[in-house]
């Protein structure tokens, strides 16, 4: 047996915390005993009787906390003793949260937490501006998760924030990372040298998770809201975010994610990036974006390419876009096509992530022609639906939380005779559903079975936005989808291309891989 001791001078932890600590230490493997007592003379005697009065414990006085751990090995005892401070701190945080009345106002919250420097606001849009104004007035940066904030309010709030040297992320900012802290719908990603400014939540998530898969982490990710780069808002927060990342010593490379900005805003953004001088990758999803490099700034066409280009720049390696990284793509495409009957040639994309839907829309349009979508109001044989849009979320939670609407639509899809491919996104991370693949898998199985019953095939192509650290367990999510018959590709862009190739056949493959490329 070995013993380890921790004496904390002048330690005042309530009895519940001390009892909880003692239990936690005793529960550690290999620990035979753990004494957690104040260093009073009587407790010295108590420890001595139990053979736990170590030399260090003897030095404790009445207001000092003694922790003596006896374990099977010296390393076990030391490790347990070393866990004392973190366990007490964890307990103190839990108690502090439980013990205090929940504040009802920003002002009350600031009183309770005077060291706070950020407020995350998620209230109905009609109230959001006032709360954001109060938070800014209290000197807090703001993550404005709320949507349905009036444009005039957004502009006024952002100007107020800038005047105070603060950031106002949003409105409709679903994802952000500040100093390694994930906010909103966010995946578990490491801290690292990539700073992001994003007018897109799932776009940010796609880039961040793909970077994490390559071992690249995020310094900060600033969500600016979907309208920030419009002419009206003028890129106020995008430019402010870029300036901060430019000044941040922990940010070595900047990625900008969004949709095509207003012309003047785009020019200001590029000028800002040139002025900062750090390597940068710009992914502003739109039609006819070509990959190019202008000094330290690389422009890319897809979210995956943003991650790949950033990774390459950090590694000082060359990079060029390619349509697929998944193995045996042509084989899988051929197999899927052979299961279809002649009349099946359309794609239906049912998306939880709006930016992912937008990216797929652009890719499918380029490869297949017109695509109907609630994102654009366009008509076409193919369809891409953003199920997080307002028309689908009336009296219903967002599809990242509630799969109901998507399940209904998958069920109806099997009745569509010309449907060849169902295209899906599955988004993991904090705030997302506990088992999104498990939610959708039965519907996929049922839809494929129904199609088979009608003498048709139905290909299901998906991508999973997530990391190995996410609570939903990425590998299990992928496995569940594949078990249901879905083909899971490494990115949304690859999934969209695969869907297009299944639906469109050889002409699409020729465009993707080049005519005569090995199949």
């Amino acid at each position, binding site marked *: 047996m070995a013993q380890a001791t921790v004496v904390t001078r002048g330690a*005042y932890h309530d009895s519940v915390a001390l009892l909880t600590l003692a239990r936690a230490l005793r529960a550690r493997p290999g620990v035979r005993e753990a004494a957690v007592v104040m260093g009073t003379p009587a407790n010295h005697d108590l420890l001595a009787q139990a053979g736990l009065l170590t030399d260090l414990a003897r030095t404790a006085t009445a207001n000092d906390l003694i922790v003596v751990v006896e374990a099977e090995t010296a390393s076990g005892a030391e490790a347990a003793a070393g866990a004392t401070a973190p366990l007490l701190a964890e307990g103190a945080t839990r108690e502090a949260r439980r013990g*205090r009345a929940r504040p009802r106002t920003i002002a009350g919250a600031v009183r309770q937490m005077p060291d706070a420097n950020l407020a995350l606001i998620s209230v109905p849009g009609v109230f959001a501006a006032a709360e954001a104004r109060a938070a800014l007035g209290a000197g807090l940066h703001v993550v404005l998760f709320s949507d349905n904030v009036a444009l005039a309010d957004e502009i006024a709030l952002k100007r107020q924030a800038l005047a105070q040297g603060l950031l106002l992320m949003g409105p409709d900012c679903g994802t952000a990372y500040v100093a390694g802290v994930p906010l909103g719908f966010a995946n578990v990603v490491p801290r690292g040298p990539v700073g992001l400014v994003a007018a897109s939540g799932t776009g940010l998530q796609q880039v961040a998770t793909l970077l994490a898969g390559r071992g690249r982490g995020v310094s900060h990710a600033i969500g600016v809201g979907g309208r920030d780069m419009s002419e009206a808002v003028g890129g106020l927060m995008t430019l402010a975010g870029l300036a901060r990342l430019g000044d941040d010593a922990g940010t070595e490379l900047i990625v900008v994610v969004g949709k095509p900005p207003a012309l003047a805003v785009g020019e200001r953004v590029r000028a800002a990036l040139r002025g900062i001088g750090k390597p940068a990758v710009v992914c502003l999803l739109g039609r006819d974006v070509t990959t190019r490099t202008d000094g330290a700034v690389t422009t890319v066409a897809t979210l995956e390419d943003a991650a790949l280009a950033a990774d390459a720049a950090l590694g000082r390696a060359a990079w060029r876009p390619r349509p697929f990284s998944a193995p045996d793509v042509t084989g899988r495409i051929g197999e899927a096509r052979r299961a279809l009957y002649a009349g099946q040639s359309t794609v239906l994309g049912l998306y939880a992530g709006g930016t992912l839907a937008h990216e797929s829309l652009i890719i499918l349009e380029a490869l297949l022609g017109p695509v109907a979508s609630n994102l654009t109001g366009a008509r076409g044989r193919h369809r891409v639906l953003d199920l997080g849009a307002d028309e689908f979320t009336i009296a219903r939670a967002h599809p990242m939380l509630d799969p109901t609407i998507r399940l209904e639509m998958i069920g109806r899809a099997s009745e569509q005779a010309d449907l060849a491919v169902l295209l899906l996104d599955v988004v993991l991370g904090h705030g997302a559903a506990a088992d999104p693949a498990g939610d959708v898998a039965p519907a996929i199985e049922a839809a494929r079975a129904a199609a088979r019953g009608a003498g048709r095939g139905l290909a299901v192509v998906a991508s999973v936005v997530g990391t190995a650290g996410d609570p939903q367990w990425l590998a299990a999510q992928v496995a569940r989808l594949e078990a249901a018959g879905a083909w899971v590709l490494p990115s949304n862009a690859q999934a969209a291309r695969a869907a297009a190739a299944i639906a469109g056949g050889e002409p699409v493959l020729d465009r993707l891989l080049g005519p005569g490329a090995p199949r």
Partner: protein
Amino acid sequence: MSGRRGCLVRLSAHLARRLEATEGARGRVHSVFARAVNVQWSDGSLLALHGPGPLLAPFAAAVDDVARLGALRPDMIVTVESGRLLAPGLGLSWQGAQRVDCALVSRRPGGASGFAALAGVLPPHAPGLDSQLGRDARAALAAGIAERDATRLMAGARSLLGLGEGLTPAGDDCLVGALAVLHAVDASVLTEPGVAAAIAADAGARTTTIAREFVLHALAGRFSEPVLAVLRARSRDEADRAAARLATSGATSGADTLHGMRLAWDALAV
């Protein structure tokens, strides 16, 4: 930053008198917990601040909003000024506060009748009281109470002080419980010359600052409202409810106090 307005809604009468008599007094924040803060005055005594509700110590005051205590940090200076406790970011007036008599008067007819009505099994006390040291200490205290033997009572008290688990060690809580019953029923042994002073001196030397404060007030016959509720209960139901509330104090503090009350009650053979 000027003090944010708030108020004390409840405080012990003893504390109120002290505050009114010590305009200009300065203390410092001694310890900060999730739901309470202790302030230590220059004479070493404590003032406990906590949220609304019964006074959890005879030296306590309840603030109107526990969130206000979030402004306090260890070693902050607290002053008494014009009917308020002042600290950076905080000003607490006691002018409209309800004053609670936390003193037990001994030899009151029917004193501790509530405890007499308290039936059945008490919740488990802290393991430290079951150690050999704990058993010996409790036995000495019980014998001192039963035989009105001040020497054995002081020995038992001395052995209990600082013994066992908790920021207020289990032995101290047990002793406070015993002293509560003594004050409610028969405090004669405590009034013998030197007894209270000796126990107070031992409390100063042998236990934590916070526990010492409870013991000193207990020697003077002042207790928390949860303890008083048990001893002032007028029926078995009321006593059971009061005991159940007391038992929820701390990890085992409330239970240890109840065991001390039982010890003294049994020793007095009331």
